């Protein structure tokens, strides 16, 4: 199981994120894996979390390749950096994308800075 799959499993089990207590919103991740796209709809209700595999409209939609998604979730790259280099797109309310980062695993990040720029591996330099 990759970081993306683990992440949605984990937040489904977590059920509540105190740092999102002020938030009630819907976010959808469209995760592109070759020719297929997986949808994950996360409903947040005052921090309570519910994850479904749904394509229905959301206030914020994050469209991203699976490899990049793995890197963002595990902390190898930041969501903003991925967005700036065109490796991800956000539609709708972008502030929700910022807040959604609070769902990411809290363990010590493994960011390798410049050596990780895109999904799939380390670059030289």
């Amino acid at each position, binding site marked *: 199981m990759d970081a993306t799959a683990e992440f949605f499993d984990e937040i489904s089990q977590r059920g509540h994120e105190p740092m999102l207590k002020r938030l009630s919103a819907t976010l959808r991740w469209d995760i592109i894996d070759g020719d297929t796209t997986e949808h994950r709809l996360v409903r947040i209700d005052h921090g309570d979390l519910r994850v479904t595999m749904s394509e229905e409209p959301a206030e914020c939609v994050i469209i991203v390749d699976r490899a990049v998604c793995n890197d963002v979730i595990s902390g190898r790259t*930041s969501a903003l950096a991925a967005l700036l280099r065109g490796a991800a797109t956000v539609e709708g309310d972008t502030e929700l994308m910022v807040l959604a980062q609070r769902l990411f695993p809290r363990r010590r990040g493994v960011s390798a*800075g410049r050596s990780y720029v895109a999904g799939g591996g380390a670059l030289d330099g």
Partner: protein
Amino acid sequence: MAEDQVQILHGNTFVVSDAQGDIEASATDPSGLFSLDTRFLSRWVLTVNGDRLTALSTDDLHYFESRFFLVPGSGTVYVDAKTTVIRQRAVTEGFREQLTVLNHDVKPVELTIRLDAAADFADLFEVKDALEKKGTRSILTAGGQLVMTYERESFRRATTVSSTEPAEVDDGGLQFSILIEPHGSWSTELDVRVASLGPGGRPLTAQTPPADEARREALADLEQWVANAPRLTCDWDSLITTYQRSLVDLAALRFSPLIARADSLPAAGLPWFMTIFGRDSIFTSLQALPFTSEPARTTLRVLGDWQGNRVDDFRDEDPGRILHEVRYGELTAFQERPHSPYYGSVDATPLYVVLMDEYERWTGDAQLVRDLEMEARAALRWIDDYADLQGNGYIAYQRRNEETGLENQCWKDSWDSICYRDGRLPGFPRATCEVQGYAYDAKMRGARLARLFWNDATYADELERQAADLKARFNRDFWVEDGQYYALALDADGTQVDALTSNIGHLLWSGIVDADRASAIAGHLLGPRLFSGWGIRTLAEGEARYNPIGYHVGTVWPFDNSFIAWGLRRYGFKAEAARVAAGNLDAADFYHGRLPEAFGGYERALTRYPVQYPTACSPQAWSTGAPLLLLRTMLGLEPVGDHLIVDPALPVGIGRIELLDIPGRWGRIDAFGRGLVEVNRGPKLRNQLGDPTRPHHLG
């Protein structure tokens, strides 16, 4: 930056050109059209029949609009008075330039008008460091447009140049062959559009309204902004000029980050720092609170949203930490720089809580304080859980990103700013004194918020206990007995870094100074080693590294002085606060109301004018905010419950200051200050010491 460079901006798009309106950037020359920290035009040169032009005049119409009156021919050799060229340029997303050519001759004239255009797509960091590009550039000419594109993997930026009049377009620019009748004119509008593109060629940022509409909105918004601010009347003319300048500059410095809905917050400085800086946005918002609460509200929201969430060494991020700086350029996108965001600031986090409390005191906006409860708690937790790097209960800093992180994470961030009396530099981690004051203040203010808005008296009591303990320890560990002041810092061994600095003034603002020591601190601040006559120096004269034009080791910083004046008032030193205000505001008069980031620490009687520190950024947000905070301190404005206390103490020589319609939880309130004028000294003291010829102000 050269004197003749013209800067105009809109949000974080800005143009730096010469007085003719031309852009001729080199790898290291910082002129151009910039947006999202990327240079979208590095060359934009106008010629008429192959000749460059000479500027007759250059007018800044608004902060987002300039007009250049030009004649063909360069300089003194030859000026053709038969033709006039007018360029009127307004920045939107990119810029629009109305180009008008007038023929003053009785004969028709044939002209070749050419605009050279090129884009190097340099990242701002590359402009500073002269780095090579890693991606590829391409040029496309089609449909009367010039499209310049840069690509590196999925990173794509493009500049499109077009014209309302038909142009011959080549890879290097646009050309017009025109005939103008006697006393006739010709005109075209050039449109330069910038695009940051994501997957599928979609723009990264939301679509913006057409340029004309954006321009009208910007103008209406500026008028509204100034109209909404309190009105100042007084018998000190230069103060009114300074106040007006501050309001307009603060409007120009508002910036909508890529990800913050449509709200705007104060960016740090124009042009190179048109981005979010945690520290600068917070300090500027604090300074502006008596005049407008919008910057504070947005700053709290945006910095709260971006609060650190995990431990990340590359970005120096911790849970609860408030960011230092965000950048949007190529090097950030590819993680060659850590600004996505970078968290290496030691003071922004406690200051975040300070701003939240001060904002509520002025506005009564309890909802925001409730909404951001988790963020404030996480910030307070960061102080105890992540910032105690020396293990002694004090906030300290040491970067974890050794390659591109910041070495000094306090406001005095230059390499030599934290020094002992004898000039030695301490090792890391460093615990600077002012940050301990901010932590104390954050805990005290956090306690108030917990009690009144978070329904958590237990937490409030705990915070107050911690604050009292911190104050007691601080007064023991930082007090320099033989100098009777607080050390600048504790070094890695817990030894005092014993230089005398302006940082002790911030301690008064935070309230961490024991009452019986306050007069000694005020004495140092207004004493000959720190006070120049214009303001308080960053480092005292007599310390080994003192240099009146050393960035943080001798210059006077108006922002620094404004918070020190507030601190002096907090401890009852009204006359001293007024002296600091008077010196700084006198200095502002020499800069037409726009205080620089810093000026020289030379003795006032020696130079007779404040010597500007050569710096690239003007206006600088917290210098723009300084006169606002100084006005607050002179009038003694303090929100207490639903009331605004007014307790004026004006500098000698000011007869009257009236600030009308001060907004807050009380609605609008007027504040009146009456001062003393020393009649036996004849004219008002406000005649500049440095300029005896200046006309006397009449009361």
